[in-house]
């Protein structure tokens, strides 16, 4: 993956902001999020529960629940702004260009319909097959691609194990041969061995089909195994965005550093596991300054009053932290 100019991006997200409006006020779930994704590249989107990862991804597909509003930003897919499209045009983009593996494989499949029909439905809805019956050969092909015998397509989800259901969800996401697959916590509810199988599958599919993958997870180690670039989110904003090696070996944001320490690493067992005290900010009652300041051990006066901006500290490495401003020249990206 040769590093090219940003024009080569398959997907470019610029200053995306999404709010949820409810009786309790406005929840600023995603604010000023920018990133780009090249063909065949995989990006890890990491953060704690409720930091806006899933909201950001649903915004890309414009699948937000009724209370969600995309208030600003552009999502450019091969240069075309998805925010400008009408619903019919958007429907042609969804699943054909960009699809999603939803969270919770255990419950995402309809329990009273055969798995094969549910995959075939995606093909029928997107006019790739005239009927469910005609979709059968493609469904067989898809299932075999993810390692499920095609003969099991007439079975129901309860006859599948957890790992197989997750595979079926992946097959469903691949049905319309998209260029981008968003995998939302694809391994969270699974055992370590099944998790390894699924990650290997994603890696293989990515290589064979030239897929661009966005892997949404709270588990940094999964990202280390699979991704080229990593975006760490905290409380709805980008905290740090860089290539995988810098994130793990030269993390700059205090939050990234804490996250890494909180993770059990069998190669350095001597250290004690460190947790991040406190909890993520409530998105309707954000602190006035940096969103991480209340939990940040390195916070100083300015952090509590002024929001830091996203700045590029090095080519391809963005950080949102006041600590960076003293050391690096301003080069907003």
């Amino acid at each position, binding site marked *: 993956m040769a590093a090219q100019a940003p024009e080569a991006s398959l997907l470019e997200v610029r200053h995306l902001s999404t709010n949820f409006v409810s009786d309790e006020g406005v929840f600023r779930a995603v604010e000023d999020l920018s990133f780009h994704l090249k063909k065949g590249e995989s990006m890890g989107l990491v953060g704690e529960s409720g930091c806006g990862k899933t909201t950001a991804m649903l915004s890309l597909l414009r699948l937000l629940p009724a209370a969600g509003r995309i208030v600003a930003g552009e999502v450019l897919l091969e240069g075309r702004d998805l925010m400008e499209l009408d619903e019919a045009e958007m429907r042609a983009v969804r699943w054909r260009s960009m699809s999603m593996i939803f969270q919770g494989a255990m419950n995402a499949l309809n329990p009273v319909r055969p798995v094969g029909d549910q995959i075939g439905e995606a093909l029928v809805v997107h006019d790739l097959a005239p009927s469910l019956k005609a979709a059968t050969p493609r469904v067989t092909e898809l299932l075999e691609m993810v390692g499920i015998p095609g003969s099991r397509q007439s079975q129901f989800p309860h006859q599948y*194990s957890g790992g197989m259901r997750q595979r079926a969800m992946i097959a469903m996401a691949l049905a319309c041969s998209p260029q981008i697959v968003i995998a939302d916590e694809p391994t969270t509810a699974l055992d*370590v061995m*099944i998790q*390894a199988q699924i990650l290997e599958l994603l890696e293989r599919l990515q290589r064979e089909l030239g897929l661009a993958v966005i892997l949404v997870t709270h588990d940094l180690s999964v990202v280390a195994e699979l991704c080229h670039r990593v975006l760490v989110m905290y409380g709805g904003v980008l905290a740090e965005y860089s290539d995988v090696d810098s994130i793990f*070996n030269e993390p700059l944001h205090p939050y990234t550093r*804490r996250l890494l320490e909180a993770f*059990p690493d069998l190669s350095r*067992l001597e250290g004690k596991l460190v*947790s991040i005290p406190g*909890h993520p900010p409530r998105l309707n009652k954000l602190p006035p300054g940096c969103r991480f300041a209340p939990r940040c051990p390195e916070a100083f006066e300015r952090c509590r009053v002024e929001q830091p901006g996203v700045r590029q500290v090095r080519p391809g490495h963005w950080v949102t932290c006041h600590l960076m401003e003293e050391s690096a020249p301003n080069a907003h990206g």
Partner: protein
Amino acid sequence: MAELAASAPCVGQGDCILEVEGLRMYFPLPRGLLGTLRNLPRRAVHAVDGVSFKLGRGEILALVGESGCGKTTTAMTLMGLVGATAGTIRFNGQDVTHLAEHPARTARASIAALNGQAHRREPSVFPAITMKRLRRQMQMVFQDPYESLNPRVTVFEAVAEPLEVHALTSSREEKIERVRQALDDAGLTPPEDFMTRLPHELSGGQRQRVVIAGALVLEPVLLIADEPVSMLDVSIRAEILNLLDELRSRRGISIVYITHDLGTAAYFTDRIAVMYLGRVVEIGPTRQVLANPRHPYTKALLSVIPVPNPRLRRHRMILGGETPNPIDLPSGCRFHPRCPVVFDRCTQTDPQLSCVEPEHDAACLLVGRST
């Protein structure tokens, strides 16, 4: 004779709080009408099939394995939530395998229970000791703090409920004091701030602390924690694990920590028992098992733990398929259909746990041969 000695498991230490020997738990399957008419053999799910281990006082033992390997069934059997098919469970040296849930309705037994004496004396003197009474000393923390708390019950009520069930407090002040103490021990400080809250006002980590406080309020000596962090974010897992470690060092509580993740077990447990298809296949001191795993299954489990460092991407030993179903068990070694180093004898001989190093046992033919 010499071979016999070599294949015997290591002898455990003296002072044990819990001794499990040859524990079996089979869930019989219905044969159906046709099966009954044809008199087909009764089949069963062999959830736990000959598990033996010892837990020392103040020790933390990890039970590690994939879904369906019988770790949770083992825990349920220990807690007396399901009755064991065979084997013995000794708690504090006393056989508690088949305790009755409620006291027998004899005058002597109920008087002893009423006076609260049954647990103070040697239980053999008072046969009225029941599972319910035993559970004061043995408590369980369940997996999902989002589902194990009643959404309409305040933290105070949830934590005080065990006290009411066991009728342990005589006054409201005493109850408040014990709940306050339990919340404090579980790291919910100051306790007063949490007592009136409802579960939806708590974060995932706080909910799990409430669940732990509910177990601690009875002042148990043994805690069985079934996947207590698997539903929590990585960033707060550490605080729950550190809390468990602290409870051990401060109160000397022994803990059975059940998990599918060797990574979290590595940090704070003293010993690890790796389970596969209802059996313990390897058991030993944590550091030793991790540094020098002897069973191929343990090796595979270790190799797939993601390493949070892209410079250290290693070869993963990914086992194909999933744990076979525990109804029709494979012949010979249970692991042989998935084993990367299987050889001809594995399909016939079922290896027993044998000592490979002091305190370190593994059940593999390759291991037995090398010693």
